């Protein structure tokens, strides 16, 4: 293969009623589940980062307190930022795999068996949005 017409590049569905999908109970559950996770979690992470930056800027003495040997609060809090970033990443992936993917797969399968997105139904020309 190798030209635009054959590579199943675009599957622009003009015949799918996205409005109806958007208002379906399944999709609203998916959207709610997604937003209820990403907004609060991201908000908390950004606040935690902001707190760290403000501490580094304005709480010099606190940050300079040694904890283990010469390792001080600043270094521990910096490493804690790395650890929380890794932890939130792992948490989100597990959440997405468990909660989001089954919901979105269900909606996608439903729409694609109606003829959308399958190679046969993929439009034959490069459609520009």
């Amino acid at each position, binding site marked *: *293969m*190798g*030209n*635009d017409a054959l*590579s*199943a*590049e*675009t*599957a*622009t*569905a003009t015949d*799918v009623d*996205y*409005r109806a999908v*958007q208002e379906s109970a399944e*999709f609203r559950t*998916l*959207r709610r589940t997604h*937003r209820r*996770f*990403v907004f609060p*979690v*991201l908000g908390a*992470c*950004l606040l935690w*980062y902001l707190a760290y*930056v403000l501490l*580094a*800027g*304005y709480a*010099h003495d606190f*940050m*300079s307190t040694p904890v*283990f*040997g*010469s*390792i*001080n609060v*600043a*270094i521990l809090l*910096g490493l804690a*930022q*790395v650890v929380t*970033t*890794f932890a*939130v*990443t792992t948490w*989100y*992936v597990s959440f997405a795999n468990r909660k989001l993917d089954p919901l*979105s797969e269900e*909606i*996608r399968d439903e*729409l*694609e068996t109606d003829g*959308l*997105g399958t190679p046969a139904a*993929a439009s034959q020309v490069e*459609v*520009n*949005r």
Partner: protein
Amino acid sequence: MRSLEAAAVTSPGEPWLNIAIFGAFVAITMIIVFRASRNNKTAADYYAAGRSFTGGQNGSAIAGDYLSAASFLGIVGAIAITGYDGFLYSIGFLVAWLVALLLVAELLRNTGKFTMADVLSFRLKQRPVRIAAATTTLVVCFFYLLAQMAGAGGLVSLLLGVGDQLGQALVITVVGALMILYVLIGGMKGTTWVQIIKAVLLIAGAGVMTVWVLAINGFNFSTLLDNAVAISGNPEILNPGIKYGVSDVAKVDFLSLGLALVLGTAALPHVLMRFYTVPTAKEARKSVVWAIWLIGIFYVFTLVLGYGAAALVGPEAIAAAPGGPNSAAPLLAFELGGPLLLGLISAIAFATILAVVAGLTITAAASFAHDIYASVVKKGKPAAGAEVKVARRTVVIIGVVAIIGGIGANGQNVAFLVALAFAVAASANLPTIVYSLFWKRFTTQGALWSMYGGLASAILLIAFSPVVSGSVTSMLKSEEINFAIFPLSNPGIVSIPLAFFLGWLGTVLDKTVESPAKQSEMEVRSLTGVGAEKASHH
């Protein structure tokens, strides 16, 4: 120590060994690029590597794209000289990826095709929004590119012992020409492989040096810190504040930088474009996860390497070496493993510049060819093959501009350009990305006000800031010319909220309503992946 002080006067190590190792890197990657690029026929092949990379491969390439020479040489040097404040950068650069993971990567992969403008113009008016998004893309790429190319000149003096302007110009030209060759032949596939190989080498090299430094200090990080304090003679290097604690303005400036770093990453066009090289949104998610782990581990390495350079080389020797703080990592490599390790680390540093400029160039070329030429000029109906042809020509033009700009900026103080690129991305791109994905009511007018307002405010504030005029360390290098009426060196704290506000204001004052059908389509597609671009089959 003694041998090093003598060596530091000129270039340490063997320039020819450095060149040979870098030559080997170029030869190996060239072969891979040639092999990988045989299927480059369609726009999807050229811009998005046929969407055929796995999450792990793309995540490594993202790390290779993101960990620029500024991250590696710059942060190690900053920690070695200004201590803890250097580490603050690393944290911002890392935490930023949560924005990409949670808000942007998957939704963008599901709704876009090749460029950031695809997503932003999905449900708004095509022409004006595409032009605006392409403009901000080109501006961000240009600033970032110029900083990398100018940095290449500085690296040359340090690593190859080329001190004169002509020799440095020659090396910048060679780097630029190699980059053009990779991108022209290899397209996104070739670029991706260069970035993957470079990421593996960089992280492995930094990892070996980290273990080595820790081994010298009995695997006790606290001992390493004690030694760093003893050699530098300044216990304050363990505490925040050497650089950003000197005044109230410096503190606000750092807050402003932190905001730009954390909100800019997920809106950098060359990072966004990488999400299109994988077949599904799930692979896009995996890419970010890989990238976060690799980048996070690398930044922990830089903490050890920075204090290691302070302990084993010493801040004075680093500051006196050609290249200043940027020489900390190479000098540490020399101290640990002699000329051979220095040669390896130098070659990796060059590979870093090459991989990053290649990623920026293909992004800028794709944006021009896809958004401006194919979508705006040809109204979405370019002749068969014309778009890729235009993209390839654009690559050559951008490459030549980058070489000329790099030579012109060589020796200039342009380190602020990377921070500016992040600030522009966070101001001009992020608000519109977030609004168009999550705010139903958002309109074209809001998008244009936010993008142009964010772009203009970030650049104007920088133009009237201390980094451009007012002191001997500013770009104009003179105290006589002083129009620095904006006190901060980082515009983010003003321009980011302003751009969010303008996006809101432009929308609520707009009486037109955007197509509700398009909004429904975008929302459904972004979350479910229905109708998303599939991998092309070869």
